[in-house]
């Protein structure tokens, strides 16, 4: 009993902090999104006006479209690369430790560092492109940062480089969790190579895939720092993502109410991914 009490006493400060800084500010943001707040918060209620403005803003529409393009690359590529690397490592390679160390390395960097480094690498005039040109291929061009259609994929390149190692680690853990005797049995039944992979191994990686998605999807929606350091949303607004839009409106421009409305939409998007999962889990817990 006293142990319980100690545990509670330890948890309460954390709960309070969480309640104030998460739910408190969430509620405040929700309220601001219903007001006329511009430069500073105001309490003048305007109903859903800010949401209406938001939905009609071509910049916001473009940001959502960009998020879709970015999200597809940012989710699918790391899954493929991560799975590939994990399967490779699982072949009981000799240098596994070293390789794992190398592939996990990008995880140690923040997105800001990743973005800055890739900004230099992808610089159309002085980056990797110039390196290739100086090697003799003088007509070589790699100017995604300057192209309205490709700038989003420049974000994808940097983000995938950053996160693939982490996805690999998740899959590797999943692979290591597969019962060796089951694999043996499958082999005895004649399953080999591709067949073994498709019929026996992949189906068991479901939970790993699920964990990876649960990390990747919200991360895609929240992507902000990468945009700031790599493209600043440009050229024009061609690589703007919703979180960047939210920051610009709320903090750089005096449209706090509009920024709050976009923040609420972002929260709802993240919740729509995480909530079903939480519900399923809590049901399982009860049963």
């Amino acid at each position: 009993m006293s142990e319980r009490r100690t545990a509670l006493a330890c948890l309460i400060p954390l709960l309070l902090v969480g309640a104030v800084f998460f739910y408190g500010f969430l509620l405040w943001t929700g309220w601001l999104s219903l007001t006329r707040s511009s430069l500073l918060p105001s309490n003048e209620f305007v109903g859903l006006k800010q949401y209406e403005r938001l939905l009609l803003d071509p910049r916001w529409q473009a940001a959502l479209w960009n998020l879709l393009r970015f999200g597809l690359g940012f989710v699918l590529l790391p899954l493929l690369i991560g799975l590939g690397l994990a399967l490779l490592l699982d072949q009981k390679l000799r240098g596994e430790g070293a390789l794992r160390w190398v592939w996990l390395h990008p995880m140690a960097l923040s997105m800001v560092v990743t973005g800055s480094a890739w900004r230099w690498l992808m610089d159309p005039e002085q980056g990797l492109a110039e390196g290739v040109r100086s090697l003799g291929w003088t007509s070589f061009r790699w100017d995604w940062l300057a192209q309205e259609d490709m700038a989003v994929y420049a974000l994808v390149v940097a983000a995938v480089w950053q996160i693939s190692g982490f996805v690999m680690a998740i899959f590797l853990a999943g692979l290591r969790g597969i019962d060796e005797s089951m694999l043996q049995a499958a082999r005895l039944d004649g399953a080999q190579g591709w067949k073994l992979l498709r019929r026996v191994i992949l189906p068991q990686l479901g939970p790993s895939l699920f964990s990876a998605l649960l990390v990747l999807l919200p991360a895609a929606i929240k992507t902000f720092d990468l945009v700031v350091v790599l493209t600043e949303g440009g050229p024009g607004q061609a690589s703007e993502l919703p979180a960047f839009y939210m920051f610009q409106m709320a903090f750089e421009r005096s449209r706090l109410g509009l920024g709050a409305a976009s923040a609420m939409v972002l929260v709802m998007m993240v919740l729509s991914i995480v909530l079903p999962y939480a519900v399923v889990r809590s049901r399982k817990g009860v049963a």
Partner: protein
Amino acid sequence: MKRLALIALLLAGSAQAADLELLHGWTSGSEAAMVTELAAAAQRGGVDLKTTAVAGASNANTLLKARFLSGHPPTLAQTDKPLRIWAEAVPLADLGPVVNAQFAALPHAVATELRSAGKPAAVPLNVHRLNTLWSNQRLLRAHGLPVPQGWDEFHRTAEALRRAGLLPLAIGSSAGQKLSLFVAVVLGRAGRDFFERALVQADPALLASERMTALLQEFRRLKSYTDTGQVSRDWAGATALLLQGKAVFQFTGDWANGEFQKAGWQPGVDYDCTAAPGHAGLHYFEFDRLVFFAQPARLGAQQRLAGLLLAPETSTRLARLKGGIPVRRDAGLSGFNACAQRSAADFRTGEARGELVLALSARLGESAHDSLKDVLSAYWASERMTAAQAQTRLAQALRQVD
């Protein structure tokens, strides 16, 4: 432990706060020198002023809002927003009749912008000319080309330079630089009246006119003189291309003058600073200013400081340190280089004839100004957006209200 000590120190520091506090984002070399001089001038005048610097104007703006939210606003701050935006959000100080009398020495357009409800609430520090064409004279001479006076001549010159393997026009990534370029085209091609009616008053007929289509097309034609590296440099990076002998022209404000001076370049010999093509003596300007917030207990000190900063000598010294030209009509120009002298001459002529053009940033509502920049930078970046589409969006942008 160390961290605790640091926090304690910070708390102690803020506890024995000075009378007045200035929050600003001036951190580059020349800017910092100006702030130091400003603080020294305050001290000489018996005003206890503390200056708080945050790197970058937008960060300073963000902190300023946070300070208001937390209930500890500074007494005065740098602002790049029209004064009425602040006046709507928070009460501003009334700097009093003495300062008001000093405003008589300011150009009318400047003095008007600094008053809120008829009372002075901000002081100007200097005037920046925005419509300047910076040219690399060394390269122009080497190719036997003069500095272009009109836009047709500019295109001919730029194309000749491109054929010679040079980068005709250096530009950076910010939306503001595209706006400057567009304004240079509009003022140079269509003139001041068109600019006022179309962009400031948002006349729908003019915005939809064929003339506007042509202006937008000409604006984008300028992109063909630029490089792809523009996406990863700022205005100073663009100026550096001129200094490295790679690029020939740049359109930006007179803050670039400092970069040329630092490199030891002589105006008229190594580089030149002229009004943008077709602008002749037209002066398109903005000015640095400090806004004073209403804090009744400190009003006396605020009024004294405002008076000190407007004093002819101090005002001139601050302008010289920051770059640009003095804001007072009666200021002397010794110690200013040829570029500043030319800007000042055009400014005074323009003021006398009532032909000065105050920058859009101080005249449009914030939403309209921001949307205008959005449209122009999107149009500049896009291969697909047609001039007609950009024109439609331009008209929508200028109709936006805050």
